[in-house]
């Protein structure tokens, strides 16, 4: 039963290779880049290297902006498949940080008016970047296993909160500035040597659960955190996202491979659609594990314990 389409916006950070392998259709959003104006989102580094991009972004963050695919773009993306009689599961970047879901919802309504039999399911991933991408990969694997449209929808709705993030964002100025994290002043800017450790929360944002002093302490906390929350690691693909923290991601990958022996660990770039809003300081692993508690209390307790042990 592979007669339905998996669709997502550029917030999933799946490169062309992953898109092809897992047959995921991408709807491009918009980027405003200095000197270039409005350009479509892209998910490979062509005109600019990752390092260059983030270095420039760090210097002039106000010259950059992002926007989700608009109404027409969603409709245009949906329509050809609907005409072919295919159902669509469209997963969107967390509604807490983007209006993508709103546009998709209206687009779906319009399509349904035109094609009353159309089957489109919209799902708020409550994730962004490679955490969102990993969710799509899981959906695609289920589809490849012959799971039905309904089964995959049910899986996504019931298991969203099992997609974890274990990592740090050591430059919070971007999330703070874009209003994508609720924080007092103390969180602004880069805090030299301090690694704020965050996890996805029920609202679709990340919440800082603790801070570690230095990368070494942070790695030790993160490895313990993964161990305490992951399920069946040997059956998993683990994604490591990094905006401009490649060497740290490589070190992390090695540790994860040694300790958990998963099927594979991929270092995933965060492309501009998410990157502009996250800034250069992200370094985090994404995996499937125990459901994340509604108020993060269980996760907070773990992080607090591991931070105390890391001292």
């Amino acid at each position, binding site marked *: 039963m592979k007669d339905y389409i998996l669709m997502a916006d550029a917030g999933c950070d799946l490169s062309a290779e992953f898109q092809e392998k897992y047959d995921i259709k991408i709807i491009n959003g918009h980027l405003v880049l200095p000197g270039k104006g409005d350009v479509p989102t892209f998910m490979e580094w062509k005109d600019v290297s990752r390092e260059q991009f983030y270095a420039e972004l760090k210097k002039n963050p106000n010259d950059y902006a992002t926007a989700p695919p608009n109404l027409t773009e969603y409709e245009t993306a949906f329509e050809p498949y609907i005409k072919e009689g295919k159902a669509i599961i469209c997963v969107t970047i967390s509604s807490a940080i983007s209006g993508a879901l709103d546009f998709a919802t209206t687009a779906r309504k319009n399509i349904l008016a035109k094609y009353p039999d159309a089957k489109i399911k919209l799902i708020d991933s409550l994730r962004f970047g490679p955490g969102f991408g990993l969710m799509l990969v899981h959906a695609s694997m289920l589809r490849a296993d012959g799971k039905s449209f309904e089964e995959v929808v049910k899986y996504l709705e019931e298991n969203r909160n099992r997609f974890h993030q274990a990592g740090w964002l050591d430059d919070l100025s971007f999330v703070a500035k874009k209003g994508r994290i*609720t*924080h*007092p*002043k*103390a*969180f*602004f800017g*880069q*805090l*030299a*040597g*301090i690694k704020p450790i965050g996890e996805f929360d029920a609202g679709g944002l990340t*919440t*800082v659960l*603790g*801070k570690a*002093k*230095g*990368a*070494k302490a942070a790695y030790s906390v993160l490895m313990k955190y993964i161990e305490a929350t992951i399920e069946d690691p040997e059956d998993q693909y683990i994604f490591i996202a990094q905006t401009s923290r490649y060497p740290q991601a490589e070190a992390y990958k090695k540790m994860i491979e040694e300790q958990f022996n998963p099927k594979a660990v991929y270092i995933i770039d965060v492309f501009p659609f998410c990157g502009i809003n996250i800034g250069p300081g992200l370094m985090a692993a994404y995996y499937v594990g125990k459901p994340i508690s509604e108020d993060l209390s269980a996760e*907070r307790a773990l992080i*607090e314990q591991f*931070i*105390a042990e890391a*001292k």
Partner: protein
Amino acid sequence: MSTKRINGIHLEKMIKNGLANLQQHEEEANRLNVFPVPDGDTGTNMVLTLGNGVRYAKSSDDAGAYLRSLSDGMLLGARGNSGVILSQFFRGFAAELARSPIIGPGELRNGLIRGYRAAYEAVVHPVEGTILSVVREGIEHIRTQITRNSSIESILSMYIAEMRKTLSFTPEMLSVLKEAGVVDSGAYGFILIAEGMLKCLYGEVIDPKELPQPYTDAPVDLSLFNENSEFADGYCTEFILQRLVNSRYQQEFNKEDFISELRFFGNSIAVIVDGMRVKVHIHTLYPSKVIAFAQQYGEFLTFKMENMQVQHNEHDRIVEQKKEHKPLAVIAVVNGEGLKTLFSNFGCDIVIDGGTTMNTSSAEFLEAFDKVDADAIVVLPNNPNIILAARQAVELSKRRDITVVESKSAAQGYFAMAMDIPDSDDVKFRISQMQSGIDNIATVSQTVASRDYSYHEISCRKGDEIALLDSEIVSVGSDYVKTIVDTIAVIPDIDDKETCVLFRGRDVPEEREEELYELLSSLYPMMDFEFIDGGQEIYHWIIGLA
């Protein structure tokens, strides 16, 4: 001459003479401060501490009562470690004599003993060869010789002689003194006070110098009472009336009747009669009526009147200034505009300007505690010299919800703040995060020596570039960069350090950041460097390595 007993009035004169004697030699005591960084001169700190006590103290015949108020004022005004130890000595002294209106030889002996014990208790790790040894040996060596017949003069003479003996040994007890060829400055300061007190008994009164202005009595802002103000609080009126025998004045005087009459004019009435003198305190809306009434009996020796509405408005203003309620408030002491801004931006609720010397008094901490409205408070002293004063303030405040995170430098304070998680509801966790912020932070400070100095292998001349690791001088030279590099190199776990935060001092050109960065990043390629315009006064560079 031989005095067997002294009352509060005698004692006050003696203490004031002790202070005057200390002030006369203040600079001498400062010069004994061997360390070539001028932050916290002992003589000045002791003068400020005792000075605040004298200013605060209420004159009384009762020696115990006088001492109590003196000691309260000293505890509040205590600055620097020597000031805190001095205030604790007086606290013990006052506690012992709390019920002694008159001090005789036995009381004096017991007071001096209790005083030194209290001083020892105030310090976590008492160091011998300091004021502590001097006040202890001074009395312990003579206590058995004190009898009922001993005069106060003889006790103080013996006490001072013994203390001088111990003082001369302080270099043997504390090698840093020996190498510098000096005696301990705090001990010297204490002896000056005792000598001033003895001189007073011999009639040798030293002209008091003007005391530096107190910070606890901030000047009242008179603009708070203006053409639009309501007047409802009246005047605080105080005077001493000298009754006169001249028949123009009413001769019959009955204290109870006098008070009943005063009740027509106001409240908060206190009347003390001392022979033909009457001291009056009253809050009244109509001072003219009080004056006319009192003048029937005599004339005014002194007269003081204050508009209480101004004070009331001032109080309201302070209350208004109180910050919004928070689960956790942070109070930090820093010096320098850049650092002040940084700590405020970090979410620090009150940033106390430590001034050049970073010697904040306990009273300043107490005032800060009052200004915040929080379930718990964290204090970041950011200097080893004011940790004691901060702890003393916590003790005086009688609050259990205040934690002094003992940051010894602005760099440690920075990491404590950076580790805080302001959006966590778990205050205990936040405090432990801040506490962990100061662990394993090496602080390198760089400046120019303010005096000649010698200790162990290290010696420097005034004007040399010097760099310190935590509070010990490690490197001396003519090139500031080299002193920094050499000092960083001796950090025992330098290979484990990942981050280096550098606070640039006020008079240091910005270009130097580049210079330092190039050299340090080539030496430590794996380290992250962060430069911050600290603007601090004494240290050209404060560098934290985590």
